[in-house]
């Protein structure tokens, strides 16, 4: 373990002090790698890269066919580097404040959203670059606008063509950032969720203990239209499958007061 941590420090030290560094230079500069065969070095280097990536340090090879300067560089610190370069702040004070905030939290914060994904989204949003990714088996090219937290899950808001859509971050795979900058504008308007635009809504009023609603409400996307009485909820949703899951999980603990399209639920139950 000690050697792995030491090698990670050596790798970070090396890449943070060089704009780009070749694989050969990396092998020659780190004693643990130096005596390894090419294959063993590759394996060890890939493992170390993947460990660093899990902590948000993205060691990536830049392979721009038009560029002369190729090699590994360190990504994943877009915001910090921009603050260092462009903002008129004392960086030591910035770090001290960061440490002070971390200390004043009661909890250790590990990862609230995947570091690699957040880093790429931030880079693309701030530099107005395109993002490409596989989403539920389909390849998408989008113009990112920002991210949103909704009922326990993170979403990316992005334009696909002319339509603003929300993509659940959990389902995003093979995320890549395009090369060209300033391709679009970003908006400060609040994001509209994709399902908020649809017309196929179902209205349902149920009586359910408040605590049970709170614990399970993230199962389905919905708008809470009314909750004047403590245990009565008037819900509007187009996520029928999600609503069925919610009702099945809470079975025995709720009563349906009214529902306008029961057939939509029956269809799912009969599938």
């Amino acid at each position, binding site marked *: 373990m*000690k050697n792995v*941590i*030491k090698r*990670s*420090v050596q790798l970070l030290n090396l890449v*943070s*002090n060089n704009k780009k560094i070749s694989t050969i230079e990396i092998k020659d500069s780190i004693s643990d790698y130096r005596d390894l065969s090419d294959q063993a070095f590759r394996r060890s280097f890939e493992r170390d890269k993947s460990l660093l990536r899990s*902590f948000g*340090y993205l060691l990536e090879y830049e392979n721009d066919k038009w560029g002369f300067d190729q090699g590994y560089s360190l990504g994943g610190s*877009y*915001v*910090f580097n*921009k*603050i260092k370069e462009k*903002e008129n702040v004392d960086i030591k004070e910035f*770090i*001290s404040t*960061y*440490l002070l*905030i*971390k200390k*004043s*939290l*009661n*909890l*250790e*914060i*590990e*990862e*609230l*959203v995947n570091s690699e994904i*957040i*880093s790429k989204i*931030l880079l693309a949003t701030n530099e107005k670059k395109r993002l490409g990714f596989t989403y539920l*088996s389909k390849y998408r090219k989008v113009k990112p*606008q920002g991210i*949103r*937290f909704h*009922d*326990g*899950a993170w979403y990316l808001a992005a334009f696909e063509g002319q339509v603003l859509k929300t993509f659940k971050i*959990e389902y995003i795979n093979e995320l890549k950032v395009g090369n060209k900058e300033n391709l679009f504008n*970003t908006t400060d308007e*609040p994001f509209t969720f994709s399902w908020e635009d649809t017309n196929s809504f179902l209205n349902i009023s149920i009586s359910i203990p*408040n*605590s*049970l609603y*709170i614990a399970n*409400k*993230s*199962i389905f996307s919905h708008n809470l239209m009314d909750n004047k009485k403590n245990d009565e909820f008037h819900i509007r949703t187009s996520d029928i*499958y999600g609503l069925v*899951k919610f*009702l*099945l*999980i809470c*079975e025995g603990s709720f009563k*349906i007061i009214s529902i306008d399209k*029961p057939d939509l639920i*029956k269809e799912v139950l009969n599938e």
Partner: protein
Amino acid sequence: MNKKLNIQFIQSFIKTIQTKPLWTIDKLLTELEITEKELFYMLTIVSDVYTSSGESFIDYDINENTKEIYFNFSENVYKFVSINDGELFNIYFLLSTDTKLKSLQAENKSIRKFSNLLSKYFTLESTDHAESLDLTFDDQLNVIEYIKLGSTHSIFYKIKPVSLKSNSDGIILEALDIDENVIKSFLIDRIVNINDDFKYQESSKIQTNNIKVEFDLLDQNFLSKLGSRIYKSVEGKVYMEFYSYENALDYAIKNLLNLKVVSPSELSVDIDKRKNGLMEML
């Protein structure tokens, strides 16, 4: 070792020490919240790293009489010190949602400045979050009312929060269960209340038993979405193990269109009963 010694912690360690060259050992241990053994473990790691010009990355001298450490930093140290986007994002998110950090901003000008600076880089909407994550945990012990996955009943736990992280189920609080002295994971969304001590009912806890479930696979593509979940798949069947009946029930219902329970029959009968009950209600 109490601390998780990983690259993140080494970064934190270097971020702290680089602010000044001279430290008393006691002050450094308090600042980093580590033991003397852990401090020396880290010193052996960082002092064994060299710059490309052959200079020590971090060199140090210890004065045994005064119990002080004098650090000699190479220029590389200042370039090495960085905060990655994930860490800044976590902090920014909590600055906009955590009650304690919000009040800290009102009192402390540098924290306010820090937060304003980050707001230029993060396009984040967190309004939905205000109601779902109100982290008013006490520094020490908390009694939480929690509804487990698949269950409709509250259970009370006396806990000491340890860390926050997330997985595909949502944001998770890792905390020490005081009675059982083990670290447990609680989905933040399912913590329905943070209670006073007197409401705590130890008797409400139930013993759980692992359960093995056999499913018919209804959608072949589903296997690619299982991520890190451990399973076995043979000829259209999927076998999984769950830590409790309720957990298996929750999983089976949430994946209703992809998996159909074959055994145990108790579980498939339970799901059918729930479906029929819902049909009758409509």
